[in-house]
Structures are given as structure tokens and as C-alpha cells.
């Protein structure tokens, strides 16, 4: 990565209190990260911070913004390049910062020089004056924080988009300072922690590369086994390999790929082809129905542990109630299987290796192993958390106070590297057959695939059914009125849903969520992957809308 790390560089409080300008791109902040949303609204209202929002839809936070750039889905990169073009033209870049802290500036210049306001406007659909105005706000107000979310990453150009965000912020000298930063708002509560703890095919806990011989040797010594030298499969690759019969066993904890993956018809096929599937979950999810063995898991209110939030802060989760019936915490289940497999001789770790065993007695035992093997969590001890210490990783030692702001003196990789990229149109574009662009996201009252929120009576009552937002113009063309049942189809599948005619979306664009299994947007979405991050293009798919008769 450009800066050498994929987490929020600054803290929430720091942005709320220090930023002079806040630039939100591809994040429906007030609905998806509501409490950050309120803090930003307050910063704007009471501190006079400037607020720029770039989003294809007229989302809630745009009502509070000084400027709303309503760019077409999949044109973020062009927009960011266009902003940098103006900043360079006006000489608003931070020359000292660029000289001392970065490299690759000349290449950046070469690329963004092409993105004149006129060209940018042509690609993005944002009027030239608004692009100029946004660049001016960013240029004249420092420090400025940039916030982004899935609207930036869920594209075939996701990684290039993220780099462009970093480029913009380095150009302005906004990285490593209070009130600045490049700040991805991570989606689910512990997606940050899942990544930190090695829930990725290319890294051990703490982002130590599996392809790095030293890192591998360290874990081989710790765990007392030989480890493969090559990367594992990503979710998408897993599903493909399962379909090809190469993956025999699939073990899924607390996830529901049968609603959250793109192109669900393909996912279903892969699951059907897998010989043996083990699922641990709270509910009989869409995915669990494909399982061979289902273990009943405990909810977070039923267990002890820690979560890491989007600003790298590690916090305690505490047990408040007992799990229902015989449900058990996920770690207990995994440990039981491991112990049985050891007894069956599935592997024979070197008994002298310090962390080879599976005889954990409490979550604290696991924490100690994490401290020992994960440098960024070395000082995140159970005792400190219990004492109420507020720790943002990296915390390299038990005495270290934690690191609320990253890159204050240097980047993790040394110099910050400008890596400029050209705009590439989305993998799938509308045509005569599928004339509309579908973009997907979430709403305030639901969460992810909805396993939890559909079973929260109040949330479900306020937002009981899937809705498809469609502009009045497109609705008229399709003969659709507000509240009509409609069929939405793409090259991959179709769903039946309900139309909400609204100017939250521009003509040519429709929006829906992936919260509802029976109308899951992911029957339609495109599995085309970003080549580096392997994140599917959830945010852009070509679709067609038709009215269906009530009888259907």
C-alpha cells in the first residue's frame, strides 16, 4: 500500500475536533457509521469545519455538506485526479512535506496533468465549478481529513482508488498530522480485528507476510510445525476451487457468503459442490443450509474477548448473559476440534515449541499468545485493557502508550510513495439491454446480511422490506410508481423488490441493499475483482428494471 498500512491513520475524536475540512468520499457515514456521522455534523455545525461529500447518491450527510459532488458510480479515481490537477495548478501542494516525506511526485504530476477540470467533469458528470470549488476548499483549509468506505474499495479499481486518496492527502501534507489522515471507515464491528489477527490468506497476525521467510520461521518455531511458503486462497478463489472440486472442506465461522458474496447463483453452485461444510453461527443462515455440520455459536453478549474498531482501538467485549441451550463461544468450538485432531494425529507439532499447544484455559491465555507473536499487539495485554487503558495499535511493548495517529514522523515503509493511476471505466457498463447502473449499500436500520437486524423487532418494523431507489425519470420510463413491485435483472440473475421513487439517486442509477436474503442485491452484482485487493465490484453492475404484476 502507498503508506504501508490499511487502517485509519487518525482517530475519530481527532477528526471531530481538529480537522478544518472533512472530505468524505464513498461513505454513507450517517447511515453506516452513525456516531461518526453525528460527530462530523457537529464539527460542521459548531466548529465551522468545511464538509465536502462525494457520492453518487443524495445520501443523508449531503444535507449537511458545504458541497456535494454527485459523481457517477465508478469514477472516483478520475474525480480525485481532477482535484489534484487543480491543487497543483494553483500551487496549493505542500512542497516541504512532499520533499521530505514522499517519493514519486513527478510520476504523479505526469498522470494528473491530464485530468483537466473539463475532462474530469466529462467523466464524472460533476460540473467544473464544483470541482474547482472542492479543490479550493481542500487547498485553503488545513489540516483536512479524508474519509472513505466501501464506495471506494468495492470497485475493480479499488486499490487504485485508495492510492489516489493517499496521493491527495500527501500532496496536501495532510498525513501524519492531527486532524488529517487517510481514514477508511471499516464496515463490520471487528473487520479490523479479523484482519489484524491473520484472517487473510497472505499474512500472519500483525500483517507479517506468509511469503517472508523470517516471518514464517518465527511462526514455525512458535507453533512447532512446517508452514506452506505460498499464499492461501481468497474467498472468491475458495469458491472457485470448491466448484472445481479442489477444496473438499469449507469451515465458516459467523459469516454468510450466501448473501454477502457477489453473484450468488455462482456461490450457491460452489457450496453445493463442496463435499463437507462446517458452519458456526447464531442462526440457520442461508449459508448454514448448505452445511454438513452446524455448531451453535455464542453471541458477543455471551462471551469475553476484544474487538478492534475502525481507528485501531482495542476494546473489551464482556459476557452479560449465558448462551441459549448448548451454544458455545466460537473459540471453544475451534479449540475442541483442534484437540481432537491432535489426538487423531492430524499434525504433530514439536512439543518444545512455546505456542504449539491447544490447552488454553481462558481468553487471557489466547491474549498472551497474541502479545507474544503479534508485534503491533505486543503491549495490548489483558491487564491493561481491564485497567481501562485506551490502546490504539501499534503498541509494541507493555510500556508503550499506543499510537493514536500513524505516520507522524515517517511512514511504515519509510517515504510515502505517490502511485498515480489512470481512470478505468467500471468492468460492466450499461447498454441497451441493461440500461441502468446498480449500486449497492446499507441503510441505517439494518446491518450487513441482516442476520441480526431482521431479528431485532424494532429495526425490522421500521424498515421491513427491501427497497430499490430509482429516479422519477427512470421510473416513468419503466412505467413504475412508488411502491410498485419490480423485477431487477442483470446478466447474472434477478430479484423481485419494491420501488422507492426518489431523487436521492440521479437518472440512470438505481440503488439497493444486501440486507434482505429474498431480494439480495448480490444475485445481480458483478464478481469482477480488483486485481490486487481481490475485492469484488459490488458498487457497479448494469441492470434493467421492469414492473411485475401483483399476482407474481
Amino acid at each position, binding site marked *: 500500500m502507498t503508506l504501508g498500512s490499511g487502517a485509519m491513520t487518525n482517530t475519530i475524536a481527532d477528526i471531530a475536533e481538529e480537522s478544518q475540512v472533512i472530505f468524505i468520499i464513498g461513505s454513507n457515514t450517517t447511515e453506516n457509521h452513525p456516531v461518526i456521522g453525528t460527530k462530523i455534523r457537529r464539527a460542521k455545525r459548531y466548529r465551522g469545519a468545511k464538509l465536502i461529500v462525494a457520492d453518487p447518491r443524495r445520501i443523508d450527510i449531503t444535507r449537511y455538506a458545504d458541497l456535494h459532488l454527485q459523481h457517477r458510480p465508478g469514477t472516483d479515481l478520475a474525480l480525485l485526479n481532477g482535484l489534484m490537477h487543480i491543487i497543483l495548478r494553483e500551487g496549493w501542494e505542500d512542497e516541504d512535506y512532499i520533499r521530505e516525506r514522499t517519493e514519486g511526485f513527478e510520476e504523479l504530476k505526469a498522470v494528473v496533468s491530464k485530468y483537466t477540470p473539463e475532462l474530469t467533469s466529462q467523466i464524472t458528470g460533476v460540473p467544473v465549478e464544483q470541482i474547482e470549488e472542492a479543490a479550493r476548499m481542500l487547498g485553503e483549509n488545513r489540516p483536512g481529513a479524508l474519509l472513505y468506505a466501501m464506495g471506494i474499495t468495492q470497485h475493480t479499481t479499488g486499490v487504485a482508488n485508495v492510492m489516489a486518496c493517499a496521493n491527495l492527502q500527501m500532496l496536501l501534507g495532510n498525513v501524519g498530522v492531527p486532524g488529517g489522515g487517510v481514514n477508511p471507515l471499516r464496515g463490520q464491528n*471487528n473487520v479490523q480485528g479479523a484482519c489484524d489477527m491473520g484472517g487473510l490468506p497472505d499474512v500472519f497476525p500483525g500483517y507479517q507476510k506468509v511469503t517472508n521467510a523470517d516471518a514464517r520461521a518465527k511462526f514455525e518455531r512458535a507453533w512447532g510445525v512446517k508452514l506452506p511458503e505460498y499464499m492461501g486462497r481468497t474467498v472468491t478463489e475458495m469458491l472457485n476451487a470448491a466448484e472445481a472440486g479442489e477444496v473438499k472442506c469449507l469451515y465458516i465461522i459467523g459469516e454468510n457468503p450466501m448473501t454477502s458474496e457477489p453473484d450468488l447463483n455462482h456461490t450457491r453452485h460452489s457450496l453445493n459442490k463442496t463435499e463437507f461444510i462446517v458452519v458456526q453461527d447464531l442462526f440457520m443462515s442461508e449459508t448454514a443450509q448448505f452445511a454438513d455440520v452446524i455448531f451453535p455459536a455464542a453471541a458477543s453478549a455471551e462471551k469475553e474477548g476484544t474487538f478492534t474498531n475502525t481507528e485501531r482501538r482495542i476494546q473489551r467485549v464482556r459476557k452479560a448473559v449465558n448462551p441459549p441451550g448448548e451454544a458455545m463461544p466460537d*473459540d471453544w468450538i475451534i479449540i475442541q476440534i483442534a484437540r481432537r485432531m491432535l489426538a487423531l494425529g492430524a499434525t504433530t507439532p514439536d512439543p518444545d515449541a512455546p505456542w504449539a499447544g491447544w490447552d488454553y484455559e481462558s481468553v487471557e491465555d489466547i491474549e498472551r499468545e497474541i502479545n507474544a507473536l503479534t508485534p503491533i499487539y505486543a503491549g495490548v495485554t489483558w491487564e491493561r485493557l481491564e485497567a481501562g487503558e485506551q490502546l490504539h495499535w501499534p503498541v509494541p511493548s507493555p510500556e508503550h502508550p499506543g499510537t493514536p495517529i500513524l505516520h507522524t514522523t515517517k511512514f511504515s515503509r519509510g517515504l510515502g510513495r505517490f502511485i498515480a493511476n489512470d481512470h478505468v471505466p467500471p468492468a460492466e457498463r450499461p447498454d441497451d439491454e441493461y440500461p441502468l447502473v446498480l449500486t449497492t449499500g446499507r441503510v441505517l436500520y439494518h446491518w450487513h446480511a441482516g442476520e441480526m437486524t431482521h431479528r431485532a423487532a424494532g429495526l425490522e418494523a421500521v424498515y421491513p422490506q427491501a427497497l430499490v431507489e430509482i429516479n422519477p425519470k427512470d421510473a416513468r420510463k419503466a412505467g413504475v410508481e412508488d411502491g410498485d413491485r419490480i423485477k431487477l435483472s442483470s446478466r447474472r440473475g434477478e430479484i423481485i423488490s419494491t420501488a422507492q421513487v426518489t431523487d436521492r439517486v440521479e437518472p440512470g442509477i438505481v440503488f439497493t441493499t444486501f440486507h434482505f436474503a429474498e431480494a439480495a442485491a448480490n444475485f445481480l452484482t458483478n464478481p469482477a475483482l480488483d486485481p490486487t485487493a481481490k475485492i469484488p465490484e459490488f458498487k457497479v453492475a448494469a441492470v434493467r428494471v421492469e414492473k411485475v404484476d401483483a399476482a407474481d
Partner: protein
Amino acid sequence: MTINLIINNQPVSAPEGSTVLEAAKRAGIEIPTLCHHPDLTDIGACRMCVVSIDGARGLQTACTTPAREGMVVDTMSDEAVASRKFTLEMLLTDHPNDCMTCEANGQCELQDLVYDYGVSWPEHSGKRHHYEIDPDPNPFIFIDRNKCILCGRCIRACEEIQNRDVWNFAHRGFETKLVAGADQFLLDAGCESCGQCVTYCPVGALWDKMSIGKGRLSQVEKVRTTCSYCGVGCNFDLNVRNNEIVRVTAAADAPVNGLSLCVKGHYGYDYVHHPDRLTRPLVRAKWLDDATLQENLARGAWEAVSEAEKRNALLTWRRQHGGNGQSQFPNSQSQIPNPKSSISPETFIRTDWDTALDVVARKFTETKKQYGGDAFALMASAKCTNEENYIFNKFTRQMLATHSIDHCARL
């Protein structure tokens, strides 16, 4: 700059710009308040905080009076105390005598002040309001205007913390009434159901609707935890009674969010106790040996007959019940018809833990021996704890000898 003043014969210093109330608080002198809250701007509406100040005419409201150099303040002068008692008596003349059953009992600021000042219930109540109780159909916010003391804290919480500007006062004098929008229902007035107004209400006029009748402060245990929905990482207290989460309350010392919560964190907890929760391990019949299968069947421990049937049952149920959140998913263990005769290899059998764990451990071990680590794929979870994810990562790499671990959609 600090300023020095005398409060109750005690020298006090405070930063410039402090109010008399804040200066007193620094010196550990408590002045009673109702409409004041440290997170909100002060409006001097309730007159509970009145104090005597040398040289000033009449009583002054401490929450809005700036502390000045050399000021001499008496917070417990006879006039101030009498004035507070009078204020409380006036409030009681138009307040239901409902503490016995009121949700706020034990955490009501009005009740505490009435107790502190020894005010007794007025013998003749004055003109009384008779508002409908819980008139708003929204699922989260309970409203009882009869208990509203018109302090305006909810108005300011919604405006200043949440920036939604939903609440306001309509009419004047005795007719003054707290209304949402233009006297609309909350959801129509732009409310986003965060429950901030409930958190800031000092009495029982606004309450969490899901918690009505579920337990008052003295009956619950509070457990501090981190939200299980989004990555902001708000902390709050789960209020637990008899092994049930009955309420979520915000905590002023929560590091990320203070008293702020959103609708999911505040009101999205009931999934934990939903009857759909899985409670026993399930294994498809084909993975069980005959003896185990027969033994379990004898106990009637089947689930749905087959995956196809299960899905059909779910789909039919969804069609019939649409999006009505009040009804529940079919409880798979009882409501899906399941003639024992049609047990197929695909039928889910409810087993004990040992049986299910052995099936998995054996299958994984065999597969590893036959095909090696690449035959496995594991999906970790952004909903699980760090410790669980760590253990899962170790299981993948150490036990199965593969790095094929990822989590869904990398969101």
C-alpha cells in the same frame, strides 16, 4: 486566566468563562439542577439552580451566571432553598404521583430533588394535563407527556448532539407541550431513532419502549461492552435481569462515543434472545454411523428433512409473513412438519457436542492426510472477537497446514 470567588464561605478558583455552577462543582459544592446537562448549552429554564449572590438583586440561576472575580455566592441561602422548594411543589401539582410503577424510579432527577428538599406531595393538585400515554407508534421511544417537566433537555440533545432538530415546544404557558416536528409522529418528523432524547431526559417522560416493564435500575446488572454492529466501536452498558438483556444504556465515560449511540447499538440487541437461535449441534444423517443415528432418532432429534425442504419451508414462511418483524421465523425444531419415515441422508440430526465434534475432527483429519492442506478453505469472521480470529488463524495454518483463510467480502 483563573478567577477567584467565594462560594459558601469557601475560596474557589475557576478558569475564566466558567459559570457559577461549574465553579462550584470544581470545589465539590453541589448545586441542584434539572434543565442543565454538562453536554448541552444552558438555558436557565427550570430555576432549580438559583443561588444568592452578594450585591445582585434577587436570586440568580447558577447555570447561566458567569463566575466573576471576587464574587460572593451562597448556594444554600434561605431564599434559594425556599425558591427551590416552591419550584418543586409547582412541578408536583401537575405531575402524576406514579413513582411506584414509574420506569424512572431510582434514577429520576425530580424524585431525588423532591427527596433532598423534603417536599411533600401537594394536597390539592392544580390544573392537570391528561395526555395520552405512549401515543407515538414508533417502536423505540416511549412518551408520557404527563411526566414532562419541560426542561428542554431532549430538545437540545436532539439538536446539539444529534443535529436532527426533531423536538420543540408548541404553545405557551400551561398549554406548553413537547412536540416532534409540527406535532407529528417521530419517524415523520425526521427522527432517526437514536434514543439520545431518552438518554438525556431527567425523568420518566421519555423512555426506551422495548424496556418498559422489564426492570428498573435497582433490579438490573450493568455490563460494559462494545457494540456488535459497526466499526465505530461504541461502548455502552447491557442492562441484564434474569439472564436477559432488558435495556441498553449509554455511558458518559464511553471512550469513543460518550452518551451517543445509534439505533442499532441502542435498540438492536434483541436478536440475542430470538427464538431462532441455534441451540444444539446439527449433523446431517449421512455423516453419522447407524448406531448414533438410531439413538438420536429415538429421541426425536431430527431437524428439517432435507435442505430443499428446509429452504422451501423458509421461503414459504417469508412469503406468508412478508416483512412483518413482529412475527418470528419458523422455529425449525417444531413448526416444520417432518415425518420420521422420510429421514434421508441429508436430514439434520440434533446431536450432542461430542458426536458433532468427532465427526468434524475425523473428516478434517482424513481429508488432510489424503489431500493435504490445500483441500481446506476457512472463512473467518468480522463478527468474532480478536481472540477467536487468532485461534482460527492458528487452526488454519498450524493444524491444517494451509494459508487459505479469508473473511467474507473484505468490507
